[in-house]
């Protein structure tokens, strides 16, 4: 395919204004090296459909209560059993969702093609690659329309804090920040926002001619929304920026309250902590007043299951298991996410409380066994982007902190010694920049 044809495939509806925006972001004197290419890939009728989808998502309630599957689940099950090879092989459609065997990441990793519906279009299929923390590389089948739909859920979350994105032609709407040795970076435009600019950047100095260009470039782009994760936001905080975005959106990892407070104070805008998975998209947004992550997708039903796959009693933590979603290339029926939480009802809809990545880990303290949520609470006051807490077989504790957080090693150590005893806690630097298992233990009984 010629470079021109590739460009048209990435940007089917690109106008001269849109091209000007791409040129501005790519050719700015302080721009980083863009290592990849991407695009919205949306065709004209899909742009119109996306507008309609965003209106629908903005208004639709999450119309179910924990433990009571909504009516649309039954319709979805019938459709999935008729069109998805994995489910067709299971035989008749179960009468109740609870009778259906769950699936997990390992099932997708074994052969994800078995989970793609017969009617999912393949011509423009795209994939998102994820390794997660379990080490199983996984390709998630997706589509440009599915990728574009993410914005609808982010706008729904932003609406709750009074922010309606309005950047359009000639402005940059969203900048996505990474901070990794290697990172997928590109520039694009969002056709549903009058081709406002979208840039995915790596704040790692190796991607820039001059590390000082990072702040200059971000100020030049002046994005309305900045998305990132606790690691990239920790670096973002260090930059001498003039421009203040209207909102920050953090995904991928738990956003510790100390870092959130630091970001809010520095940029004077709402900081959204969104629980999002490649397999599911944005699931919930954290709301301190609700005590957890409020669910965002009107067509996503969530169950909390115990290890045997039975519904956990109300108020008891279990594995977050989802049905539905907006990815028509990978409809989900009882997909076990590998994340743990409790689910409670609220006036605004169901809320995931105590969300902890992966299975909870217990620690043996001076006061007996405690759950890792207590460790999170102990470390809450500190601006830590990410960490690992490991309990050795002799009960001693090693706290590994991101290098930028080593400044708070002493007070964090003291907070933990209150739980584990004086002299029992050692602090080291955490070197891995990717997702890390936060909680690990060598002790028998650490997994309930």
């Amino acid at each position, binding site marked *: 395919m010629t470079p021109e044809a590739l460009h048209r*495939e990435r940007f089917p509806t690109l106008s001269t204004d849109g091209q000007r925006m791409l040129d501005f972001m790519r050719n700015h004197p302080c721009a980083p090296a863009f290592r*990849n*290419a*991407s*695009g*919205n*890939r949306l065709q004209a009728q899909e742009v119109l459909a996306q507008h309609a989808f965003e209106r629908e998502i903005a208004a639709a309630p999450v119309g179910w209560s924990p433990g009571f599957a909504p009516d649309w689940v039954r319709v979805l099950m019938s459709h999935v059993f008729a069109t998805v*090879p994995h489910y*067709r*092989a*299971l*035989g*008749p*459609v*179960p*009468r*109740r969702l*609870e*009778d259906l*065997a769950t699936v997990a990441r390992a099932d997708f990793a074994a*052969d*994800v*093609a*078995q989970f*793609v519906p*017969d009617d999912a279009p*393949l*011509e423009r*299929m*795209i*994939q*998102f*690659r*994820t390794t997660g923390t379990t080490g199983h590389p996984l*390709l998630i*089948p*997706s589509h*440009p329309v599915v*990728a*574009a739909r*993410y914005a609808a859920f*982010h706008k729904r979350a932003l609406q709750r804090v009074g922010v309606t994105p309005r950047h359009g032609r000639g402005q940059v709407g*969203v900048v*996505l920040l*990474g901070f990794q040795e290697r990172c*997928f970076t590109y520039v*694009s435009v*969002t056709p549903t926002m009058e081709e406002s600019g*979208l840039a*995915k950047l790596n704040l790692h100095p190796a991607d820039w001619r001059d590390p000082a260009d990072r702040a200059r470039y971000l100020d030049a782009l002046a994005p309305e*929304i900045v*998305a990132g994760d606790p690691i990239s936001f920790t670096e973002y905080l260090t930059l001498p920026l003039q421009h203040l975005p209207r909102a920050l*959106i953090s*995904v*991928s990892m738990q956003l510790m309250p100390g870092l959130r407070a630091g970001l809010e104070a520095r940029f004077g805008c709402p900081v959204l902590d969104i629980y*999002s*998975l490649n397999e599911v998209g944005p699931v919930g947004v954290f709301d301190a007043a609700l005590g957890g992550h409020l669910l965002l997708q009107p067509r996503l039903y969530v169950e909390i299951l115990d290890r*045997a*796959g*039975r519904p956990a009693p109300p108020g008891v933590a279990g594995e977050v298991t989802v049905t539905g979603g907006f990815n028509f290339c990978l409809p989900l029926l009882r997909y076990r996410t590998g994340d743990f939480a409790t689910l409670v009802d609220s006036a605004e809809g169901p809320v995931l409380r105590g969300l902890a990545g992966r299975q909870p880990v217990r620690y043996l303290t001076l006061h007996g066994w405690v759950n890792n949520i207590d460790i999170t609470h102990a470390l809450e006051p500190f601006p830590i982007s990410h960490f690992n807490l490991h309990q050795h077989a002799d009960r001693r504790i090693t706290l590994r902190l991101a290098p930028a957080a080593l400044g708070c090693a002493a007070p964090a150590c003291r907070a933990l010694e209150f739980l584990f005893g004086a002299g029992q806690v050692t602090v080291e630097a955490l070197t891995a920049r990717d997702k890390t298992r936060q909680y690990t233990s060598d002790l028998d009984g650490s997994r309930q």
Partner: protein
Amino acid sequence: MNQAAMKQADLAQLTRRLADIPADFLAEPRIAEHGEIVLPALVGDLLRMHGWQPSPDDLTPFVGGPARTERNRLALTSIAVWLLADASFIAAQASSAALLDVLHQLVGEMAGLTAADGFVIDAERREELVRAVLARLGMLPLGETAAQAADRLAAISAVQRRALLAASRAAEKRAREVREALERQLAAESADKWTRE
């Protein structure tokens, strides 16, 4: 077997029995603590109805393994139990081994091809199941010769098998195309999301 010695049953009456199956027999088979119908108990009751006392080993195949491979088989076992509880089968005095062969081997073969509820919903599949069970037990549909019964079963099964073979080939082709689509360079290049997990 000598045709004169072969017991007979009313095909129409048995297919009607399948169509009128009580909802309880279509409930979820119990696998790994999920589901309502406990198949070993159900099969045990059926054997006792036929005058046999099943051993624990007889019932082991109905405990079930992974849902992906076993759910449809056990669901069809439940339907076959309902069918075999008909008075015409009880009167035929089939051996315990023959009944277990139907419930395990024959049902296993048929469940590998068709969703269990198809044998209730679809008139042709109902007839196929009844004819297959009669043949396996050495019985004949009322008014048919052995040759006629064999021909009709072969015909009805062949149509289904051809359709399933075509579906299976189409499914394999589709899975291959999905894998190829995912591996394409442009797929890896991805498309815009406002956030990246």
